[in-house]
């Protein structure tokens, strides 16, 4: 069980796609002008990650090292195209919002990275768990960053969420700051860089504090022993 605990700790925090590996920043900055878009792209990426890891893990003994990268790229590209077609056909309103960004999932190096470094070396269930954990970690960061930019930039939260999740989720759509005039720069690309830098700084600070605390504990423990 500790193996899965470590996989999820890696995906959600320690080795998070954005916070730990600094990957996938291009789609991150592009779609997070509001929380709904972030959530939508996060879920689509999660779906592709789990299935890419699943298939790569199944094929790990058949595919040799020399052709692994082209095979994996082909695999990811196929999954993304299938996702694109299915979204266009059955979740059309969401596709209108995210359509431009879905083909970008192909260029998301985080997926190829996980397929290469984890799924091709591990068995089925851990590989899927890793895809799920990494995808969830990415979704959380995308949604969180979208929420920060949306609240500060336009004063709302989860606007148009019912387009993504269905009419039952209309309660998510909140106007946080009524009669807000908007703070444009946060919705524009520079705001993306600014918010990302604050999030990364906060993550580094938390990690540094946690590390110092851990060190303190070992030293005090050592003194007691001595």
């Amino acid at each position: 069980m500790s193996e899965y605990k470590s996989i999820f700790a890696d995906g959600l925090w320690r080795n998070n796609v954005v916070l730990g590996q600094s990957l996938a920043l291009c789609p991150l900055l592009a779609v997070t002008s509001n929380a709904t878009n972030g959530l939508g792209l996060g879920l689509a990426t999660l779906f592709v990650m789990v299935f890419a890891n699943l298939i790569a893990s199944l094929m790990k003994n058949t595919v040799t090292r020399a052709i692994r990268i082209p095979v994996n790229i082909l695999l990811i590209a196929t999954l993304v195209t299938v996702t694109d077609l299915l979204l266009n056909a059955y979740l059309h309103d969401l596709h209108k919002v995210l359509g431009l960004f879905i083909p970008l999932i192909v260029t998301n190096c985080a997926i190829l990275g996980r397929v290469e470094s984890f799924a091709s070396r591990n068995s089925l269930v851990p590989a899927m768990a890793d895809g799920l954990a990494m995808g969830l970690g990415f979704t959380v960061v995308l949604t969180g960053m979208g929420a920060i930019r949306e609240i500060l930039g336009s004063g709302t939260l989860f606007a148009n969420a019912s387009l993504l999740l269905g009419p039952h989720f209309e309660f998510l759509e909140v106007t946080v700051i009524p009669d807000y005039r908007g703070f444009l720069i946060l919705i524009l690309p520079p705001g993306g860089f600014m918010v990302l830098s604050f999030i990364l700084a906060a993550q580094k600070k938390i990690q540094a504090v946690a590390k110092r605390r851990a060190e303190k504990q070992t030293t005090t423990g050592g003194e007691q022993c001595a």
Partner: protein
Amino acid sequence: MSVLTMDKETIAYQGGLLGVVAAAAAGILLLVSSLSSDAIALRTYEDKMAGLNQVLPPALYQNDLLATERSWEFDGQAFRVFVGLNAENLITGYAIQSTAQGYAGDINMLVGIDAEQNILAVRVLSHSETPGLGDKIERSKSTWVDAFESQSLSSLSQPQWAVKKDGGEFDQFTGATITPRAVVGQVHKTLQAMQQKLIPEISKEVSLYE
């Protein structure tokens, strides 16, 4: 020698496997594409009709609007015209799709006019104007486009077809003049194109749409 016992480092194995994977990927894509193509075509059709119905109310026409689509050229610009006909096959209105040059690229817009060339409605279909400034041309963000309703070439004179900053009748937005100027200019251009060239031409060929 079966495939399973074959030496995996040979070119034949690797090339063959790459070929099999590529063929499988192509097969899956073909399957999903053929399964979803009908649904996608239907969604595209619904989108188009929803856009057209915003500028040309469904009560005004009885025919299949999309079947009347034709592209015309006027003054170096392309105009796609959809013609609404009533049960007696008389023209009751037009929806005209054209492209204006905005601040950050093309503004794709639809103008609906009745048979007397009065504007029924104007809608922006797609644009890449600045969020929060230029995007007030969207009906979902602002009622600005409603100012065009029931205007025509005879209700406003040539200089009045401009934003207020240029001495015209239409509001500009705080911090954004280029976007509304482009939209007003394009609506005016559309009306001129219809009056001077397209309506005479289309009336001549109305039998084409029967």
